[in-house]
């Protein structure tokens, strides 16, 4: 299998089509754009909520809307997604509501995960999004194993494993790609190369000529796409997904993008990177690029954008109000789901905790 290190593009930086446009219904093109607009607005509103102390932590995907949305679009609802911090937008595309998302950020009783994980660790089986840890890269081997299980049971499910550029240095990345190619499983490994792992730049992460080239070590098909070009991301991901579904084996995709904000609400990127670089990528903004093309095709108007912005802002406001009205999860919720049946020793601990009631809240000296 060959690796193509050419950066695939459909739209150039100015939003002009320079290659055949993938077949996407017009209504979907508009929905895709609305989704990217809503992701960006959500980032702004949630970061502001975090700054006000109303949620504890937030991780933005600003600048990465096209790579998230385009890759999500290429999947079927029945496909499984093994994602991490920067891909909550995939869940939102697949049907997660803003209120469900915000409940998870708060960790309240309405949270699908009932307050068990820190903010931004959203997942929900109803959209085939698999629960993940904060340890980098670990979900990729799960995607590989699940894809094996799908193949063994002759299902046509494709398993999509997301990872960042930093994650490609992890042992689980290596194991996942190696096993996947040896076993020819229906998986796609999608690397959002946003060029920064917190403060460590790509140049300090790998000496490879690209991220995509790493596929060659596994004998795997590797491709490289401009992650700020929604149409190119759709094209490349769709091809990989359908190849996997048809039994053609896995693909490794490097989607080149840029993390416009900090790693998270706790991070100050001005400590380690140059404003000129940020400016360079600002000019390659994925939302504006796609917007320019949609306008040139007559698929988007100022009125659409105004309407969508107003609608999304209103949806977010209503979701915040509703989510903030919900109580914290009950003490019992800490003790269930450790095992299918609660062991007697744990039931004793739960009784003890219930008798004591809620603990004394002490704010950490350095809240994350």
């Amino acid at each position, binding site marked *: 299998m060959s690796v193509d290190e050419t950066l695939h593009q459909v739209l150039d930086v100015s939003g002009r089509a320079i290659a055949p446009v993938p077949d996407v219904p017009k209504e979907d093109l508009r929905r895709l754009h609305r989704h990217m607009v809503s992701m960006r607005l959500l980032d702004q509103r949630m970061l502001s909520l975090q700054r006000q102390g109303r949620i504890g932590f937030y991780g933005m995907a600003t600048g990465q809307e096209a790579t998230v949305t385009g890759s999500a679009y290429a999947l079927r609802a029945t496909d499984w997604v093994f994602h991490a911090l920067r891909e909550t937008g995939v869940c939102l595309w697949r049907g997660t509501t803003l209120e469900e998302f915000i409940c998870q950020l708060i960790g309240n009783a309405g949270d*699908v995960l009932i307050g068990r994980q820190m903010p931004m660790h959203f997942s929900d089986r109803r959209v085939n999004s698999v629960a993940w840890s904060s340890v980098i890269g670990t979900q990729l081997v799960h995607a590989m194993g699940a894809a*094996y299980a799908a193949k063994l049971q002759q299902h046509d499910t494709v398993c999509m494993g997301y990872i960042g550029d930093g994650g490609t240095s992890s*042992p689980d990345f290596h194991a996942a790609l190696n096993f996947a190619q040896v076993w020819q499983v229906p998986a796609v490994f999608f690397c959002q190369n946003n060029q920064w792992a917190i403060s460590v730049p790509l140049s300090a992460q790998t000496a490879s000529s690209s991220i995509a080239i790493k596929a060659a070590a596994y004998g795997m098909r590797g491709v490289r796409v401009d992650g700020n070009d929604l149409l190119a991301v759709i094209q490349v991901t769709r091809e990989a997904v359908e190849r996997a579904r048809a039994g053609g084996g896995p693909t490794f995709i490097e989607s080149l993008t840029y993390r416009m904000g900090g790693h998270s609400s706790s991070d100050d990127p001005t400590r380690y990177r140059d404003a000129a670089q940020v400016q360079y990528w600002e000019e390659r903004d994925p939302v504006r690029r796609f917007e320019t093309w949609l306008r040139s095709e007559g698929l988007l108007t100022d009125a659409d954008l105004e309407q969508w912005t107003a609608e999304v802002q209103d949806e977010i406001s209503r979701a915040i109000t509703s989510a903030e009205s919900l109580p914290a999860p009950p003490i019992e919720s800490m003790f269930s789901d450790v095992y299918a049946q609660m062991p007697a020793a744990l039931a004793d601990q739960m009784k003890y905790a219930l008798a004591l009631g809620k603990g004394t809240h002490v704010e950490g000296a350095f809240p994350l």
Partner: protein
Amino acid sequence: MPQMTMVQAITDALRTGLREDPRVVVLGEDVGLNGGVFRVTEGLQAEFGEARVLDTPLAENGIIGGAIGMALYGLKPVAEIQFVDFIYPAFDQIVSELAKFRWRSAGQYSCPVIVRAPYGGGIRGGLYHSQSPEAYFAHTAGLQVVIPSTPSDAKGLLLAALAGEDPVIFLEPKRLYRTIKEDVAEGVFHTPIGRTRTARSGEHATVLCYGAMVPVAVEAAESAAARGWSVEVLDLRTLVPLDSGAVLDSVRRTGRVVILHEAPRTCGYGAELAALIAEQALTSLQAPVLRVTGYDTPFPYTLEHTYLPDAKRVTAALEHVMSY
């Protein structure tokens, strides 16, 4: 009823599991054509095919992480780690992922993976083919830790684990793999997880032990009988969940306790047992609770039988608690 060694009993359990349930798969290094380095999976690939009995690339994190993915998607994987000493590349996948999937997904996903691994010393295996790391896993919420000491228990516990819904760390005392042969029932039977086995009944003292230390305890109990001491040997069989009721019942009856394991002493599983007894049966005790364990050193090659507890050390501990 056929006579089987522990290796044969585990093979039989795997074969039974693979026959009874199409979701069961076996994976690990050399488990296919070669039948595993201890021959535990011998003949399984020939019977069930390469898709269900898989040789893996040599990466423990890939084996366990892959098994997790398979379990999430509905399979029941039995993953073999060739020696438990090689489990650490998969430690993160076990403690951060496998153990926590049910909880962190609020019950939406479960991971019924069985991790089988031969453990323990006494086979001239040196530092990296002899260790007993059970305490690391017993410390992690979400895992069950099972350690059989007889062929029949090995089969019954493995089939019970396969019928369960949660992950199991299944540690096999490789020193006993071929030393004991006993009747093992054919077909499906379950030895319940979370129940001790009384390896020998007694009234004057209790030895709490598991795995390869059970025959050592029984040997010491037999020699104690010659001195008129009736020593009970409880084979814990599962460390998590612990059958604390049976442990405390025995301790309350005898009032004297020796805890025996080959793992190092500090923060070993014996410390948990001693704490349980101190918290819940202090007034029944006639003597201090003693531990006979491996030493707080790495596992030695030449001196392994000095490191490993033997009947002599157990007897010395019994003398101490009986004469206290």
